[in-house]
Every structure is written in C-alpha cells, then in structure tokens.
C-alpha cells in the first residue's frame, strides 16, 4: 500500500510543478459547458432539462484530455520500465498513478460542476445529486480511461484513437450519472442510479488496474 501512495504522491508533485496542464483541462470543461447555452439559446426551462447531460458529457471529454499524460512521460524517460521491474507489484503502482490522475483531473471537475450547474438554473438539491454522482462516476472514468491510455501508449495517433476506444465504454457511466440528476429533477427515486454507479466502480477498481497492467506490459515488450 505504501508503494501505491508513494506513486500517487510523486505524480501529484509532478502535476503541481506543471500546473498549466491541469488548468487547461479544467478550463476546457468550463468553456465547453458555457458554449451550449450560446448554441441552444438562453431559455431556462430547456437549459435546466439538458444540464445534467451537458455537464456529464463535458466531464467525460475533460477527463479524456488528461489521459494521454497518465503514462506517456514515464514511458518516454524509462520510469515505467523501472516500475515494471521494481519489487513492488506493478498493479499497485499503476493503481497509484490512476488515483493521482483522478485527484488531478477528476476531483477538480467534481468541485467545479455545482458552480457550472448554477449557470443552468439547477436548484440546490439537484446540484448535490450532480456532485455526488460525479464523485462516484469520475473515478470510474479514470479507471476505464487508464486501459485505453495503456493500450495506445506510443502508438501513432494515440490521442484520437484512445478517444475512439474509451468513449463507447463510458456509456454506462454517462447514462447512470446524468440519469441520477434527471431522476431527481423529475422527482423519482435516485437510489438505484447511485447503487449501479457504485457497483460499476467496485468492479472497475478490481479489474481495470489489472487490464491496464497487462496492456502496459505489452507496450513495454
């Protein structure tokens, strides 16, 4: 477990020294969500209806922006190979990197989403549901995304290819994440959505680092 947190700490330090990369993805999230009212029109009722979907799709895309950075730099300077050779289990180190990615790319989105939700006239309850859904959903996005990032490591046109691989797999998270907020606004029970998001997260926590490790080993051969 120490190895996991050491990796996370290292990646967080690296991210803090290159703040602009983190902030770029965050501002991308802000700009994309602000573009929709400009394209659709300022009608509050319509904006309120489409807000959960827009915020979730923007969060998916913003997470995607940070994914290529997860392994690329460490692959280039050989750190990743040293990690694979180290006595600590490689899967644990990879989990640490995924955790760091979520803390850098996912958590800020969760904190920022309620502020952006106000733009769409969501009430306080809906904002809470949105934040909680993103809190459960964004780690899932980081975990699934890590598989895509590992598979496309060092591959021609990796970034676009990764989007092609990862986005279809994001569909369930999008459906239940945005669905929770929509259900709350419609006055329906939201327990089911949260249970399913948490269940998918539990499955992904177990399997995704494993698949990512297998994909990284192929890339390192």
């Amino acid at each position, binding site marked *: 477990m120490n190895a996991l947190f050491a990796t996370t700490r290292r990646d967080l330090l690296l991210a803090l020294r290159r703040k602009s990369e983190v902030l770029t993805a965050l501002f991308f999230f802000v700009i994309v969500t602000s573009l929709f009212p400009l394209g659709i029109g300022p009608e509050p009722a319509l904006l309120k209806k489409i807000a959960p979907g827009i915020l979730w799709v923007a969060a998916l895309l913003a997470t995607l922006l940070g994914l290529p950075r997860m392994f690329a730099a460490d692959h280039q300077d050989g750190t990743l190979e040293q990690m694979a050779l180290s006595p600590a289990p490689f899967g644990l180190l990879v989990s640490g990197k995924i955790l760091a990615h979520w803390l850098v790319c996912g958590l800020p989105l969760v904190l920022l989403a309620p502020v952006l939700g106000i733009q769409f006239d969501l009430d306080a309850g809906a904002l809470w549901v949105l934040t909680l859904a993103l809190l459960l959903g964004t780690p899932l996005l980081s975990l699934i995304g890590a598989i895509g990032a590992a*598979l496309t490591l060092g591959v021609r046109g990796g970034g676009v290819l990764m989007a092609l691989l990862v986005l279809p*797999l994001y569909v369930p998270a999008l459906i239940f994440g945005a669905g929770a907020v929509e259900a709350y606004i419609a006055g329906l029970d939201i327990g089911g959505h949260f249970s399913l998001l948490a269940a998918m997260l539990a499955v992904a926590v177990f399997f995704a680092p494993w698949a990512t490790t297998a994909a990284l080993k192929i890339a390192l051969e």
Partner: protein
Amino acid sequence: MTDKSHPIARLLFHFASPQAFYPLAGKLIPWFWALTAIFGVAGLYISFFVAPTDATQGEAYRIIFVHVPASWMSMFIYLVMAFWAGIGLTFNTRLSGMVAQSLAPTGALMAALSLWTGALWGKPMWGTWWVWDARLTSELILFFLYIGFIALQAAIDDARRADKAGAILALVGVVNIPIIYFSVKWWNTLHQGASVSLTKSPAMAQTMLWGMLIMALFFWMYSIAVALMRARAIILEREANTEWVKHAVD
C-alpha cells in the same frame, strides 16, 4: 519424444500452426462458398416468393430476412473474436490473433448492415429512420467497439503487439457489452421515448421462420468463408519471409 495428448488436442495443436492451417483453410473455402450459394439462393427464394405477405406490415417486412441474421452475426462474431483473442493471450498462439483480426471487419460489416436495414425497415413501419430504442442504441455501440478494435490493430505496426493489445480491448469489450446493453435498456425505459415495441411482434408464420433460419445459415457460411480467406491473406502477409510461404505461393 512420444506425444501422449488426446488425438483431438493433437489435431488442434497441429492446425494452430499457420503453416498447417493455411492449406486446410484453402481446402475448406470452396466448400463454404458452395454452402453460401446454396443457402443464399434457397433463403432468398423463400423470403421473396414463398413467405406470405404480412397482414399488418405488408411487403416491407421482408427486410427482416436480412436484418435479423445480420444482427445475430454481429453479436456472435464479437464473442468468437473475443474468444480467440483470449486464447491467443493465454496460450500465446500466433494463429488466434490472426483469426481475431480476420473476423473483425466481417463483424463490423454485419453491425453496419443491421443498423442500415433497421433504418430502412423503420421508415415505412414507424415513419422514422431512427429511434433511440435500446436495441438500436446498443447495436450502434457494438459497431463503435468493432471500429475501435480495427483502428487499434491498424495503428500498431508490430503484428504481435497489435494482436495482444487488440485481445485486451476485445476482452474488456466483452465484459462491457452486457453492462452497456442493460444500461441502455434501462435508460430507454426511463425516458419512455419511442412508443413502438420491437419485442412484442406478432406470431410468425412457419415459412417466415424457415426463411429466416436459412438466411441465418447463409450469413454464417458467408462469414466463415470470408474470414478464412482473410486469415489466409494475413498469414501470407505476416509469414512472408519464411521458407514455406515462398513454396506455398508458387
């Protein structure tokens, strides 16, 4: 060294070598094409001339003779592809990856055909080309998964690495397909979008069912024949600098 393994296992191991598989596939391909032709002619004859006109849907329903088998094949081929990909990953056999790679374009074609014929059927039946029905949506996502698999394999130059990376993607996809299907289904019922039901179709006439089954066999035979031909081409391409390929071609 005497080989004590079961004769069937020995046979499988023998044909797991591309060199042994290549001539076997060559011998099988004409048979599968012949069966494709027989089932194709019989199936199309039944679906166009024998099967009665549907009481409620008229002549336009006949598109299901293509649509349903294509949808079946698109789902089944993904499973077969993931199976061979998994075998290739665990046993490190070269041929498995080649088979998975040769199946992917046919699977993508079937998914595309299923979506297209579905749209053609939807227009006269529902008055719209597309509804966000659970089955249509999950078929669309399946099509995306095929495209991702093909794109990933095409982007990696080293064939062995492409096989392994594709195998992981195919296996991740197989785990996700049921999750995607049920999430889309639930999403659909929650939204109550389309008022049409695909599941409550009226009871089918006996000849219609036979036509559909024979058409399904036609799609099976076609898929096998095409996948074998593609596998042979892939074997030649990858083993181009070996001695046996030089003799096999001339």
